[in-house]
Each structure stands twice: as C-alpha cells, then as structure tokens.
C-alpha cells in the first residue's frame, strides 16, 4: 500500500511533449507509472510515444479517469495549468516547477483547498509509491517497503532514501513538499496519511530551516502511534539569508534550526544530526541489523 496514489492510479502529464516533460515521462513509465494521457495544446488528437494527447485537461478527463496529474510547465504558465487541473476535478496535482511567483502560488493552493485537491509542490521532485512515480525522483533511489518519507528538499531525499534502499529498507511512499514559501501540502497533511496507512511502520521527516512546518508537524507527532525519525538541514545558516529554497530563511528570529529540533524532540521524534544517521535510527526502530 501507499499514500495518495498506487500502481492502479491513472496519471496525466501536462506539458508531456516538452524537454523536461518528455524525458521524465519516459522515466515515469519505466518506473511503472500508468501514464494514460498527456496535455499539449496544439497537438491534441495525436499520440506521443503511444500516449494520447489532448488540447485541455478537461478533454483528457472526458476520455479517461484521471487520478493524478504532473505539471512540467514553465513558471509563468503554471498558475493557469494548475487551475485547469483543479477545475477539471483532478484530486492529486504535482507541480515540479520552481520559481513560480508567490502570488500565483497563493491562488493555486487556496483554490485547491476549496476544491479538495491535494497539491504536491511547487518546486519539488514530486512523489513516488510502488509502481507510481509522479515527478523526477531518480528511479533507482526508490524501493518498496515499510518507511514513509516526507521532505522539503529533493537531493537530501535522494541521499536518505538512497541509503535506506542500499541497506534493504524500502518505502511505502516518498513525498516531496517542495522548497517554496507557500507549499501546497504540509508535513502534517502527509503524516496524517502515513499514520493511517497500514503498511507504513515508521516515518522519516526531512525538514529545513524557515517557516514553521516542522513545529506544526511536532504537534501532530505527539498524537501519532508510529515512530518518526527527522533530519533537518540548515543548522549553520545565518539569519536573513535565503539558502537556495525560497522558504529556507530565518526571518525575524523565526524558523531556526534549534527551535525545530526542540519541538520535534519534545514531541518524541528522533532527530538525526547527520543525514546518514537517519538510516541507523530507522534500522533500530524496525529491529533490523
């Protein structure tokens, strides 16, 4: 099992014929994702690598049951493409694109909330469950197993999930919330899903400085029955400096590393000092050598 999507999910790709879209479409299909349709304005009615193309998301939805969509769309056009997917009634929308203006993100995530759609991203690697990858996580990193992973950062996830996979510990689902200031989903949203997913035995949370998503997560972790291992990046970051991600900044004394570690530790999560310690802690929790 997994959260949000599984091997039976039908997936749409918006921007499937673009450079990024076409490359990652092939990677997603190689992973086992059931890509049933693509949207490429001006190319509707054609096939792309055997996948039918449509002019609009609405048109694709008239021909297929669509469970999730992945956007490979330039930042300037993402608001429209995301709203298109929301209005068409798609419930899981993954936005890979970075540098989307904050004003656009506010419109996207608030409209999604009204229509009860889950936004993963923006500025994320997406997510993966067994045989269903939505986004750009390297295929080799993932393996099926009992650990749920939710993260704000991509490469750090590859690092940690890769090391879990290397020692034979697989994942139920791996979810990237994205590094932006206004992410569509929060740690809490995903922890809730992992908590009720019968196959998830333990959750790894990969956070970073800035915002208060980790503090909110800590509040929820207090109520969880499953153990949580956390790693947080940005201990050495000076205040007021944006560390790559738009959301990774200590502003007005808020969003510090120390504050987050304190909140998570108090909530009963195990906080790893180094990324490689995450694996050791998960091994111990699962009773593996």
């Amino acid at each position, binding site marked *: 099992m997994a959260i949000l999507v599984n091997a039976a999910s039908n997936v749409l790709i918006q921007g499937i014929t673009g450079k990024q879209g076409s490359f990652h479409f092939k990677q997603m299909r190689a992973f086992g994702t059931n890509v049933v349709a693509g949207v490429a304005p001006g190319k509707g009615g054609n096939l792309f690598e055997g996948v039918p193309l449509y002019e609009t998301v609405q048109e694709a939805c008239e021909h297929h049951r669509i469970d999730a969509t992945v956007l490979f769309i330039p*930042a300037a056009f993402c608001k429209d493409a995301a709203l298109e997917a929301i209005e068409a009634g798609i419930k899981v929308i993954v936005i890979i694109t970075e540098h989307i203006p904050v004003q656009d993100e*506010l419109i996207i995530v608030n409209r999604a909330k009204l229509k009860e759609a889950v936004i993963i991203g923006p500025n994320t690697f997406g997510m993966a469950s067994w045989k269903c990858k939505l986004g750009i996580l390297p295929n080799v990193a993932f393996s099926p197993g009992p650990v749920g992973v939710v993260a704000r950062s*991509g*490469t750090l996830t590859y690092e940690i999930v890769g090391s879990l996979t290397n020692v034979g510990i697989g994942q139920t689902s791996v979810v990237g919330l994205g590094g*932006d200031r206004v992410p569509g989903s929060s740690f809490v949203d995903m922890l809730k899903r992992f908590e009720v997913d019968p196959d998830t035995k333990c959750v790894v949370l990969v956070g*970073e400085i800035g915002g208060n998503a980790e503090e909110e997560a800590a509040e929820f972790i207090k109520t969880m029955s499953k153990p949580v291992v956390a790693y947080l990046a940005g201990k*050495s970051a000076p205040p007021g400096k944006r*560390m*790559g991600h738009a*959301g990774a900044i200590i502003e007005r004394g808020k969003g510090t590393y120390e504050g987050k570690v304190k909140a998570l530790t108090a909530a009963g999560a195990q906080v790893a000092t180094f990324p490689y310690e995450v694996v050791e802690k998960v091994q111990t929790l699962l009773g593996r050598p």
Partner: protein
Amino acid sequence: MKCFEFMGKEIFARFGIPVPRGRMVLTPEDAAQAAAEIGKPVVIKSQVLSGKRGKAGGIKFADTPEEAAQAAAEVLSMTVQGLPVRRVLVEEKLKIDAELYVAITIDGAAKAPVVIASAKGGMDIEEQDEADIVKTHLDVFLGLPAFLARDVARKIGLRGNLAKEFSDILSKMYCILNHKDAELVEINPLVVSGDHLIAADAKLTIDDSALYRQKDIPFVDEDMTEVEKMAKAAGVGSFVELGGDIAIMANGAGITMGTLDMIQLFGGRPANFMDAGGGTGVEGTAKAISILLAQNPKVIFINIFGGITRCDDVANALAQVKRDMGIPVPVVVRMVGTNEEAGVRILKEVGIDAYRDMKTAAQMAVALAKRGEGA
C-alpha cells in the same frame, strides 16, 4: 529583491499613499538644491538595503540648504551595516505626533497574506509586545475589502479622519502587494502629523520569482557581495557568501545546507552556500568552480549526489578548470550516482581522489583546511 526606500516611496506615491516631499540625490550639491526646493527643514536619509540606519548615524537633519549639503557629504562618506552609502534621500522634516506600524506580508504556513499593524511604530516589530500587535489574515479571493481595512484601523485604536486615512493607505498597500508582486510592504513608522497620516519610511521586497513581470522596477543588488554578483552573472543557481575557508559546491538546496552543517559540525568553516542546481553540464559547472576559487579558499569541497546531475560532467568540469586555470588548493570530492565510475576515473587522471562516503569526505576537507596545505 529588496527595494531602496526612495524606490518604495515612488511606488507608494504612484498608488496614492502619502509620502513626504523629497527626492533621491547622489551628491551634496544636489542635496542642497533639493533642500532649497523643499524650502523647509529637511531630513537626509542614507539609502542602503539595511535597517537600523538611524542607530548607525545614517539619518541626519538640516535646517538650511548649506546644512543639507554638509549632512549629505557626511552620510555619503559612511557605511551602514557594512554597506557603503551611494545615495541619500532628501525629504521635508515631518511634524511627528505619533508613530504607527503597518505591514502586509505573505504567511507561508497560513497560505495567505497577513496584515500586521500596531499603534506603537518606530521600533522593530519583533521588539514589540505581542499584545500590541494586530494580525489579520486575508483570503486571497477576497483580497483586502474596505470593511476589513476599517476594522484593522479600529483595532489599533484609530478614530475619525485618522481611521479613514489608515484604511485607505492599507487598501493601497494591498494593491501594491498584489500588482507589484511584493512579498513585503511595510511602513514603519506611519507618522501621525496633526490629523493626517504620512509614510515616513517604505520597505518593499519584490518576489524574485516575479521580477520577469515587474520590468518597470529597477534591479537592485547592492546587498550582494562582489562574489555573489559574480555568481549571479555566471548564472550559478544559488549562492550565498558566508566568509569561511572551505568553498563548497553541492547540487540541491537541501543537500547543500546539509553539507555546510556537516562541515561546521566537524569544526570547519564554510566559505559559501552554492547550489549548483541539477543537470548544469560541464560549462556551467566549470563556471561554478571558478566562483569557488574567487573566494581564495583553503580547500574546495564538492558533494554530488548524481541524479539529473551527471558525475562525469562534474569531473570533466573540474579537470578542465584544473588544466586551464590551475587549482591552487586541495579539492575533496564526494561523488555518487549517475555515471559515478566515469566521474571517479576522470578525477583520478587529474590527481583528485573521490570519496563515496559523505562523512569521510567532509572530515578530510576540514582536516586539510586546518593544515592549510597547498596542492
């Protein structure tokens, strides 16, 4: 992108927010002329992208054009929080009866803009008592309706014409947030002068991701260091200078932060944050390495988890820079993932050892920096 105060005030004026009479000048002579035009006592304000200008002596008063020239000359020769003053704003001196605080910014956690207001302005908002601060979250689909603006005015205790002017200013601030893609619109202090309000300061931060559609706002990078400007010009994704002696490159914001943390935990001092991005290729990576060298580090530490980024591209870039420019300091590379074997082989040919293990590599980088060895 942070805007200078004078830029913020120009935008305020365009949207109908009252600001003091004045203009930005570059020389003491022009300051005198501006003061003469205003014809009243003036204030000379250093234009730098930093707060606490008053405490640093970057704000002075003058009663005559001659005094204005003198004050401007002094301010133009100083640095505020390490930033040299290149411009001053000459403005009419206001009669101040009280100072308010008002700002609109984006609350990422609430996924909403938030209005922050206080009847006690003039000082940093974080130094204020929570009880004195009014926070109102906005619905992006409603924006800031007039009734909400009036309610904020009421909550900070304003009545009569001041309440009317306050809600009008607040509505206009929201228009700026919305139309100019601002992340922060702040007035501190918003001055009560008789029965009127006037924005004595303007802090405006424009969303970097939206600059492409705000072309009428001039680009400002004076809060960046020289190396940061070089990095930006070279198209290096994301770069922050930190002042240590171990220059660092990694791919991805999270792993870059994690790398800096590890270096620091092992007792080293990171020179910079550099997220070289994904799939940058040989040429982009070579440019990034030259930026690392520009900091004159004792050691270069490269941490690559190859996904979209190919290890052989990074190795080729390093080999190229080493051949063309020479690398006068030790290079420690940790490299795993896509095309790892090829990358390791290429590095070996130019005498650079690559590690698979992040911990060993980071410890090695710190040890080399402490020894200060040359290559």
